């Protein structure tokens, strides 16, 4: 990391003040380097905002793109605060996965931090969004902004017409079910705002009519119990979709809200599965790009000191017994993995040749690019987590079985344990395992119109009691009739929850 001779150095800036011209220049330099490294990005749209607008976001009004909901604001603020303390908590809200890619710079930052954001978001995250297969499959980057604007305007109109509180209530309920608003196995159609506007009016008219067909219940008097068609015919995993189409008591505008949240959930779906990779990739590139800038003599030591202090803050990983421990830091893990991948390409050891015969010694840019494009967190870890990273992080796997009264250490970072640790860690990022498997199995069309859901327990893991109760209340609000959630283990219902809650039967 030696800079060129003093005479050749031409710092882009010195000190901590920034202005728009400097931002443009930094963007030019970093963009040039990014291109040299082969990063393919959408055009960037950088928006400079003030800290008060953060509070706007918190109050659910402010984000230039994105509808008003306080939870988005809350996340935005959390992230922005980490930002201010030098931690680069750039979650997806500060970078919008779209074409052009929108990133936010806070007015209060120093020029170093602005440069850091440029490298991290505008080139790191941006190239990830453009390249990774999940994003390419699940989002149409060109139309998402339009759709978000449509959603924002529609929701603002609803607030005016029906009041802030009713809209907020529906949105709260939809958000509680957001993780179950995705068709996991169907490829979605790209969202187009023009289409949406046109179709929305049609929907309003047709929906009520089809609904009435479903709910016409003139019970056949004393007729023989025919084989009743069960509804739904197959279990439905996309709860929001089911509600949107079938909830009997929703107004058309409420249905539209459900649909909007569903579409947004779909938009965010890839992000949930690529946290480690996305952050690791962006961190790796901000590190690489800014160091390259330093090597060219374009930034001074002061810049680097500030940058490195920020950078190391982000990568903090307290060990498991530290009071500050809060799980594995995706930035730390992702960065470690990408950095190690580069090392395996540039300077492989014998162990690397044994573990990664295909990539040891290969050109690092191609390898990293290939990894970024074709994997998600689970598969990325399963494929590329190296023994060295496991040793550095001293990873170990613990089995916590309720039926036993001790924890069991499944594997540690030694020769016998590497594969197992890797498997265990990968499964931790498998959404299918981590999120409870809940599906709609029955609607009592002719009776009390109640909705029944089935939760298939995996490895005897029960649902979180308090949260489930809250979510069921939300579901009840949307459905309008009683809802029932059964937890099944090996086909037997081990736990049943309903909303409204049934009174306990009196003892006989």
């Amino acid at each position, binding site marked *: 990391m030696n800079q060129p001779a003093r005479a050749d150095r031409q710092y882009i800036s010195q000190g901590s003040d920034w202005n728009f011209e400097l*931002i*443009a220049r930094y963007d030019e330099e970093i*963009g040039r380097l990014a291109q040299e490294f082969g990063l393919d990005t959408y*055009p960037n749209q950088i*928006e*400079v*905002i*003030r800290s008060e*607008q953060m*509070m706007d976001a*918190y*109050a*659910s*009004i*402010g984000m*230039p793109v994105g509808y008003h909901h306080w*939870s988005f604001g*809350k996340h935005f603020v*959390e992230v922005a605060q980490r930002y201010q303390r030098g931690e680069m908590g750039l979650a997806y809200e500060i970078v919008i996965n779209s074409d052009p890619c929108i990133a936010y710079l806070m*007015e209060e930052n120093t020029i170093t931090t602005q440069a850091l954001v440029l490298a991290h978001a505008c080139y790191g995250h941006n190239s990830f969004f453009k390249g990774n297969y999940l994003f390419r499959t699940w989002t149409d980057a060109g139309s998402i902004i339009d759709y978000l604007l449509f959603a924002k305007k529609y929701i603002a109109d609803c607030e005016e017409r029906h009041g802030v509180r009713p809209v907020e209530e529906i949105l709260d309920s939809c958000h*509680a*079910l*957001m993780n179950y608003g995705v068709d996991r196995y169907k490829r979605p159609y790209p969202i187009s705002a023009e289409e949406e506007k046109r179709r929305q009016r049609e929907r309003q008219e047709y929906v009520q009519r089809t609904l009435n067909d479903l709910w016409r219940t003139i019970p056949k008097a004393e007729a023989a119990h025919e084989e009743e068609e069960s509804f739904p015919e197959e279990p439905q995993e996309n709860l929001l979709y089911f509600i949107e189409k079938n909830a009997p008591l929703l107004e058309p505008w409420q249905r539209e809200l459900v649909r909007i949240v569903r579409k947004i959930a779909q938009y965010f779906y890839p992000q949930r599965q690529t946290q480690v990779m996305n*952050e690791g990739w962006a961190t790796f590139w901000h590190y690489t790009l800014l160091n390259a800038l330093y090597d060219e003599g374009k930034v001074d030591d002061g810049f680097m000191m500030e940058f490195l202090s920020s950078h190391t803050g*982000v990568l*903090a*990983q*307290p060990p*498991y017994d530290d009071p500050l*421990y*809060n*799980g*594995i830091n995706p930035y*730390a893990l992702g960065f470690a993995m990408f950095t190690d991948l580069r090392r395996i390409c540039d300077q492989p050891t014998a162990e690397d040749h044994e573990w990664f015969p295909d990539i040891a010694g290969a050109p690092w840019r191609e390898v990293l690019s290939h990894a970024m494009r074709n994997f998600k967190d689970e598969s990325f870890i399963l494929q590329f987590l190296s023994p060295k990273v496991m040793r550095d*992080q*001293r*990873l*170990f*796997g*613990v*089995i*916590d*079985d309720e039926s036993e*009264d001790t*924890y*069991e*250490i499944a594997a*540690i*970072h030694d020769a*016998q344990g590497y594969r197992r640790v890797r498997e*265990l860690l990968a499964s931790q990022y498998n959404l299918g395992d*981590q*999120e409870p498997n809940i599906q709609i199995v029955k609607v009592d069309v002719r009776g009390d119109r109640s909705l029944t859901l089935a939760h298939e327990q*995996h490895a005897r*893991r*029960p649902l*979180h*009691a308090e*949260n489930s109760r*809250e979510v069921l209340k939300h579901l009840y609000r949307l459905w309008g009739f009683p809802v029932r959630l059964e937890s099944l283990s090996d086909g037997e219902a081990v736990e049943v929850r309903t909303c409204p809650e049934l009174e306990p039967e009196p003892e006989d």
Partner: protein
Amino acid sequence: MTYVIDRRLNGKNKSAVNRQRFLKRYKGQIQRAVADAVKQRSITDMERGESVSIPAQDVSEPTFGHGPGGRRTVVHPGNREFVAGDRIKRPEGGSGGGAGSASNQGAGEDDFNFQLTQDEFLEVMFEGLELPNLVKRHLKGSDSFKRVHAGFSNDGIPAKLNVIRSLRQAKARRLALCGGPKKALANARLLLEEAERRGDEVTAKKLEKEIEDLEARIRRVPFLDTYDLRYNLHIKQPIPTSKAVMFCLMDVSGSMDQQIKDMAKRFYLLLYLFLKRNYERIEIVFIRHHTVAKEVDEEEFFYSRETGGTVVSSALKLMAEIVEARYAPDEWNIYGAQASDGDNWNDDSPICAETLMKRILPKVQYFCYVEITKRDPQALWAEYQRLSEAQPELFAQRRVSETGDIYPVFRELFQKKVEAT
């Protein structure tokens, strides 16, 4: 191609932050933060704005997730001593390195901090409070009049001239005065024509003279006369305002140690700020007492260091005297607030109760008593108890043992009562 957009708000318009929506959403937290701040602040510092912190987790977003139980595997970093196959005892309680599912956030959750301005702070502090039973309204002072349009008058100054009415009157006068002559004139002209046609010179001459006279007469009637002028009239209507006076009775006897005095002062300071903020016209009478009572000004009330024994009735008597002298009950809404540690000369307590019952309570809208002590209630408290049972609408008493209790008690005493329909 990179676009850089400046979305910061331009200097001119205020921040588009809809603070009201934000404050409404987090009302609970803000109120709690304010209550905490009031508890901790020094008396001189009571009025400034405050930094409020909202814990990130407080705004919960439930989703379906796993609870504890079943069989789960987790990978952690930082192994120092374990080997595969080790068994570790479960820790008591929930610690043991967060054996939860994969975390989505790397670092810990953070609080959101923002600043309440002084005004907002005071508003939240005194939200939902009012002086109870504020009913008597009466005239007071010369600046409580308003000008009201009250028709028209015949006298006035040129600035108040009502042009249209004046001209209308003038027209009416002209019609009245010229009506007869004009008719006669028309008549005469007709006759003149006839006479001229007949060739009757004598009649014609006579008629011409008559017409001339009539025309002159009409010309003499003025277009506008002073009698015609009309002016707009305004009168002053008094605006009734409520007059209220608050009596602050503080016990500064020797039995009140520094801490208790401090708490009493806090109470009165809250009261003072509340009154100043919410009521335009309110007078406050400060009375300090130990064995004798003295009316003082604000400075002395809060800062003086005099001390002595305890005779509570002295303060009550002084209050009654002042009321009789200066504040007629039919004009003034009278309130009283008394703070003491309850440690009164025993024989004196019944006198207090009697003074209150006979001389004070009949005249006041509301009287509250705050006892600041950690000890058990004594005679004074018991006497007052009887009073508050007898007249719960007029008399309220509360005990305070710690600084933290003052603000909630204050709020209780002055809580807005829901209007009975």
